[in-house]
């Protein structure tokens, strides 16, 4: 027993090392005053300075964040109403086909989504750039929001709605005071997932972005194709910290949403 658990621990430790090593490797060399990722000369903040003095890079960062926040927000709104529509769809076969259609973009390969959106935008005459990227991000985030909200809606007891109606609430009030508070954790989860999908997306953006507009992923790609610059390392250090903060924040929100399900209903 002792021996196997030791090998088990070793194995898990190895997996964790492999998973984190590349990230830590990147961050480590972001402090290298030498210009490469191979020999560490001395400690410097120089590359972080480079990130913040590069106005183009800063603009791209801001663009990326704006696209992520806007697309996540809009996708969440559309997705929540979509899931309400699916749940209260009486006809079972329509509901099921709606669900299947909803999931198409989730399982489709990024390249296919990117290519097909490219055709779509060209056909209807949307100029490639901020608008096309934003619309694409909304489009591929909607189904994720639906998948996060739907289980919450299904787990909601329908007698809650009957009770609210019985107590004199109108349809709008039922939605505002009963349904939305109940599915809030699902909405948060959906928003957060949409945010990360948008921040992480490369392939779709790569297809639908024009010459004048770029997001971080696309920019890193073109920088990386050109070779190693430690500016990317510094960038990854910043992104890692931000990601960690997001994860911790999300963890707390989801923990808070988990325990008192009834809390929201009471208000």
């Amino acid at each position, binding site marked *: 027993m002792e021996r196997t658990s030791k090998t088990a621990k070793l194995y*898990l430790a190895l997996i964790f090392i492999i*998973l984190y090593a590349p990230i830590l490797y990147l961050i480590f060399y972001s402090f290298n005053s030498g210009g490469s*990722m191979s020999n560490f000369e001395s400690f410097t903040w120089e590359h972080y300075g480079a990130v913040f003095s590069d106005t183009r890079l800063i603009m791209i960062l801001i663009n990326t964040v704006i696209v992520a926040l806007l697309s996540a927000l809009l996708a969440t709104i559309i997705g929540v109403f979509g899931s309400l529509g699916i749940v*209260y769809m009486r006809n079972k076969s329509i509901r099921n086909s709606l669900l299947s259609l909803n999931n198409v973009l989730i*399982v489709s390969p990024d390249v296919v989504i990117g290519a097909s959106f490219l055709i779509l935008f060209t056909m209807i005459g949307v100029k490639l750039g901020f608008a096309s990227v934003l619309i694409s991000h909304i489009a591929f985030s909607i189904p994720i929001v639906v998948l996060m909200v739907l289980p919450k809606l299904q787990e909601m007891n329908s007698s809650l709605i009957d009770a609210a109606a019985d107590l004199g609430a109108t349809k709008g009030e039922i939605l505002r005071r009963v349904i939305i508070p109940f599915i809030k954790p699902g909405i948060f989860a959906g928003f957060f997932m949409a945010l990360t999908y948008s921040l992480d997306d490369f392939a779709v953006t790569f297809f639908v972005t024009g010459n004048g507009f770029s997001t971080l992923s696309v920019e890193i790609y073109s920088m990386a194709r050109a070779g190693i610059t430690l500016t990317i390392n510094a960038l990854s250090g910043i992104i*890692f910290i931000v990601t960690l903060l997001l994860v911790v924040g999300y963890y707390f929100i989801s923990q808070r949403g988990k325990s008192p399900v009834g809390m929201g209903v009471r208000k």
Partner: protein
Amino acid sequence: MQTKNTKTFYLIPYFAWIILFVIAPIALIAYYSLFDLSGNFTLDNYKNFFTSIYLKLTLSSFWYAFLITLFSLLVAYPTAYLLTKTKHKQLWLLLIIIPSWINLLLKTYAFIGIFGLYGPINAFLNVFGFGETQILFTDFSFIFVSVYIFIPFMILPIFNALDKLNPSLIDASRDLGASSWTTFSKVIFPLTTNGVKAGIQAVFIPSLSLFMITRLIAGNKVITLGTAIEQQFLVTQNWGMGSTIAVFLIIFMVIVMIITGQRDKGANSNGKN
């Protein structure tokens, strides 16, 4: 429950989305696959796809996707299994998931340095007397990086399946005389196939369509269907051929989904009924 009007009113954006961004793109891909470079209606693209260049490409793409999926599974299953045995398993799982939230491009970029001619792996090999070898731009580096990227997506569904497994089933199997290995092969694995299938789905289809990793890590070789689509759309500007490959990629995707589809019997087969 809702009157007809309010229902349709708040559903407009969602339905518009389904028509514009789910149905229309697929239709457009299918439509474009029927035109050649100069805009003439033709089936040439499909003919082309069945020439040896594209068949070879498809085969190699499947082969790489198969290897990536296989290695991911081999690494992920024991990891998921051991994770369910840890004390704070949800926390450890979160730690496994965190790297998957770091931008994909950054992780890939890291390997350019790690596998580079002067990177740590070569430095390590040097210690043992091996000369500097080009690890980057090889099949090994491509598969390794892909497996690295996909592992969390394989671990997650398997972990969930294992976590749902009723522990007294394992006791029962031991009680009836089964060794640890028999218990694994006859009870644990059959009851977690749904997790494995979900993991395969999450890894195999994206592996077919990778193009960023092939460009950065495998060099400029066109070795996956995804790279070919990107090439046709953005380099050669042959949207017709690109769409044709995309049509086949969609067909392959549907086939994979059907094969790895969840059967109902298995859906509640965690034994907690």
